[in-house]
């Protein structure tokens, strides 16, 4: 979910109205936005619309809010003048990064707010919408330094070098990927490629190596820049078109004039035509029976109200009979279905203007049997004077394996936050020993229990694991011994009405007085903890325990 830096003054300038903070918070509800912080004029706005890159700038927020508040309505028209710049895609990029869409925006007045917003929008669109630049990489250039036409072509490492942004000497692509900060961050996007995509002009001046880095010469936008060349590269035409339009709209909202570019495709089946003009600012239409609105929302609205609410959400609406047709900009990739349009209608209507209704449904509730049973066992345990403890499922191999002298396999995480939380517990007792090790200053005797899930690998199960609900009781004090722990187990089984069998056995972590227990056919163990194992947990009083599967 993108968090945006917004200048309040800049917002007010674009919105053409001064707003208080509380008013601003209300307005942000229209864009699923929330004020996440304020430091003087600088605001942090969290935008929950993860599929709407058009909103991720001050310009975008204001564009939407202008319509929601009735200051504008319907799809915003952007004039695209026919430009004279041609871009040629080389056939050698088809397997590398085959698509590019471009535009020119002239007469932009670049100030600090502008630069902050452009960098931010480029960043958010490239990172969040563009899946960390894989789907869309965006470049902005000073058009007046470039000499069109522009070529988008793959070069081998030894065929090209240029000075990347914030660098002083020319570098080869491989050097950029291994040494430059951005190169290192995004080098996986060009892994396994012998060709590096390059945007280069007719005088062989390199503009950039998408989607990694611009060149220092043309790829630096400053407050002296007047005319911008924009390119977006990627794999999917819809996505790069959206990114390009989002950038152009924001620039045009600040007074820039948009000019189109002609993209010439190579003669390969992969490409749909010989050429295409970008940006297109296409629209899409979705039609549905307007009765769906009442069915989904419970609101009885007449046609003009429906029309008004949806125009406030920047749709162009026509209603013929029962059919409603909603036209929307093609960059609204979040609209899959009529329900998406209906949500926009509800947001215009205002959620808090709707009267909530009680659900009348005669149904019977119930708890899961395992949960009820666990609580039954829990009652028995507290009757025995035991204190319930809750520990995490996520734990370490050290606790679950090394310290208890067992070599074992666990459900294991690829990307743990730390080795302390690398595996899922297989047994409860090591977690309880770890708990006791942190409470040696507390009064003895210490008598604790836990009821919780444990995981073991099991390839027969649909999710690869056998999940059991275990009960573990641990006692520690100077005089605890096998008799004491056994009497806890026996009394508990008696209360629970369970049959119990004990057979003397050996366990790596239990001393001589230990046994396998079978409770209602399920296995467990009971005994006195080995002194060595207790010491591994820093425990210096005798410890007895049992663990069974419920």
């Amino acid at each position, binding site marked *: 979910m993108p968090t945006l830096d917004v200048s309040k003054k800049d917002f007010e300038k674009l919105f053409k109205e001064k707003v208080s903070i509380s008013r601003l918070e209300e307005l942000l509800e229209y864009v699923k936005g929330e004020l996440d912080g304020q430091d003087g004029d600088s605001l942090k706005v969290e935008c*929950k619309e993860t599929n709407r890159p058009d909103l991720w700038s001050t310009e975008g927020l204001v564009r939407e809010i202008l319509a929601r508040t009735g200051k504008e309505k319907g799809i915003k028209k952007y004039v695209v003048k026919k430009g004279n710049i041609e871009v040629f895609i080389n056939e050698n990029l088809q397997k590398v990064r085959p698509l590019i869409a471009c535009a020119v925006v002239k007469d932009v007045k670049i100030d600090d707010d502008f630069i902050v917003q452009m960098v931010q929008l480029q960043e958010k669109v490239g990172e969040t919408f563009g899946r960390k630049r894989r789907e869309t990489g965006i470049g902005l250039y000073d058009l007046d330094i470039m000499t069109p036409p522009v070529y988008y072509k793959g070069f081998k490492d030894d065929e090209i070098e240029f000075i990347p942004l914030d660098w002083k000497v020319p570098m080869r692509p491989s050097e950029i990927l291994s040494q430059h900060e951005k190169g290192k961050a995004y080098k996986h996007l060009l892994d396994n490629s012998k060709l590096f995509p390059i945007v280069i002009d007719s005088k062989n001046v390199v503009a950039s190596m998408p989607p990694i880095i611009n060149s220092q010469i043309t790829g630096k936008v400053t407050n002296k820049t007047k005319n911008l060349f924009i390119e977006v590269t990627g794999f999917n035409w819809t996505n790069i078109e959206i990114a390009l339009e989002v950038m152009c709209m924001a620039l045009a909202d600040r007074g820039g004039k948009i000019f189109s570019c002609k993209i010439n495709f190579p003669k390969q089946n992969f490409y749909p035509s010989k050429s295409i003009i970008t940006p297109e600012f296409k629209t899409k239409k979705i039609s549905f029976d307007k009765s769906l609105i009442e069915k989904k929302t419970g609101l009885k609205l007449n046609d003009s109200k429906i029309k008004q609410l949806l125009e406030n959400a920047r749709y162009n609406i026509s209603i013929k009979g029962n059919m409603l047709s909603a036209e929307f900009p093609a960059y609204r990739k979040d609209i899959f279905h009529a329900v998406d349009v209906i949500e926009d209608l509800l947001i215009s209507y205002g959620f808090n203007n709707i009267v909530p209704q009680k659900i009348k*449904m*005669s149904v019977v509730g119930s708890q899961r049997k395992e949960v009820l049973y666990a609580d039954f066992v829990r009652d028995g345990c507290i009757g025995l004077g035991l*204190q319930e403890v809750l520990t995490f499922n996520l734990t370490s191999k050290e606790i679950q394996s090394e310290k208890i002298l067992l070599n074992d396999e666990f459900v294991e995480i690829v990307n743990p936050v730390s080795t302390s939380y690398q595996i899922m517990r297989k047994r409860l007792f090591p977690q309880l020993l770890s708990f006791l090790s*942190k409470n040696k200053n507390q009064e003895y005797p210490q008598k604790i229990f836990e009821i919780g899930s444990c995981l073991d*690998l099991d390839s027969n199960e649909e999710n*690869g694991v056998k999940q059991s609900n275990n009960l573990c009781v641990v006692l520690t004090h100077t005089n605890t011994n096998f008799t004491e722990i056994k009497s806890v187990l026996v009394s508990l089984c008696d209360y629970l009405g369970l049959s119990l069998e004990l057979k003397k056995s050996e366990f790596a972590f239990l001393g001589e007085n230990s046994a396998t227990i079978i409770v209602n056919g399920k296995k467990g163990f009971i005994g006195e903890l080995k002194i060595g194992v207790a010491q591994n947990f820093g425990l210096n009083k005798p410890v007895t325990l049992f663990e069974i599967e419920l």
Partner: protein
Amino acid sequence: MIEEIKQLSDIERILILKINNSKQSFSDFSNSSFSIDSVRRAAGWLAKKEFAEIIKTESEKYFLSIKGEQALERGMPEVILLNKLKELGGETSFKELQSSSGLDFKEFSIALGINKKNAFVIISSGKISLTGVDNDSPLTDLSLVLKKVKGDEKISQNDLSELLDRGLVEKKTFVDRKIRILQKGIDAQKILLEKKIDRVFDVESVVPKILIGKKSPYVQFLNQIRSNLVAHGFEEMYSPLIVSEFYNFDVLFQSQNHPARTLSDSYQLKQPSKGKLPNKKIVDAIRAAHETGGKAKSSGWGYKWSEEIASRLVPAMHGTAHSARKLVEGIESPKKYFSIARCFRPDVLDATHLLEFNQMEGFVVGENLDFRHLLGMLKDFAIEIAGAEKVKFFPDYYPFTEPSVQLSAKHPELGWVEFAGAGMFRPEMLENLGVKGEAIAWGIGIDRLAMFKLGIKDIRYLFAEDLGYLRNAKGVLL
């Protein structure tokens, strides 16, 4: 006097009758029914009330330290060093000698110093060599002295201070307590022997606290929330810890290239890594939802959906994964479902974040449900479960619901808090899984509510590692 005697406890009375004018050890009075701890406590009380006095004498004792025990077993470090040097041919480097002697650096330094002082070895140009002096005047073997210490025999002051310096012997101080009767006690003895005096309790005095067996406060809280939902007609769903991404994401219409599905935002499993998907009909329905919208009048995401990605296993990241499973396995309608599910997210463990936490969520399914019912249900939850005074709704986003809502509740003490998220399950899910009617999905942030009800500021106390906290925690009643 009589009043004071009346208040004496049984064990005080027993003890007062046994002591006399000579100094006596506590252990003289203890037996199977009168433990040494009871004697100690009774003696303390009698002394406080001036029936008797306690006389303390301190004594010192010497013990072998762990190192001392080792030296006794393996030999003194200086002897080990000298023997090792002889074994190695009488001359070697520091490093070689230390590693082969098995002594740690400190022991080795001391041992070398002793041998040097006695001129048994000399050090020149980084080598240690024997001088042969030890053949004429061998060293006193201190291990004999160690043996004496262990046997509690007397040793010379010189030896003692050397052994203490070297950390081979440790000094411990013991305090011995003896009890002797005072005049007031003698008077009391007479009265107690003469007639029976019933005990009178001081009703205001402090009594010992009993450590009772208790449930974890968090479990108690969750159980009551659970009962509350059941009372409202909700049926509990199965919520396993490990699920396939199919349930965690795909059924929920979350596209496979969504950033939430990358390693930085979600856990992935090393083992087991792949699960089994349900039957082909279901898998194809979900594939269609993603690729073309399937049976729903939807555009779908328009990409090629992969079974491989869907079958990856993950620790459940949100409770909605279990609603997804329920929808796949088949539901009744109308019906209300819920789960209280353990969820996992890579995060930093601190006072406000847990790596694993509980989510309470579910859905209500039936014909003739609309957005107003969704708002109504959330409002009921906020008022009945959280005790909210006022509620406010905000537009929200979830990949699997449209429309989506967030509810903020005004709590009398906490002020406005984000309490619940909800929405109507997307038609891409319901229609492709053959669910008729509408389904209202909801989730409630119960951990925050639990913290409030339990009166804790640090979320880690839900899984408290502090036995003292658990023992002192009050019972929870919603």
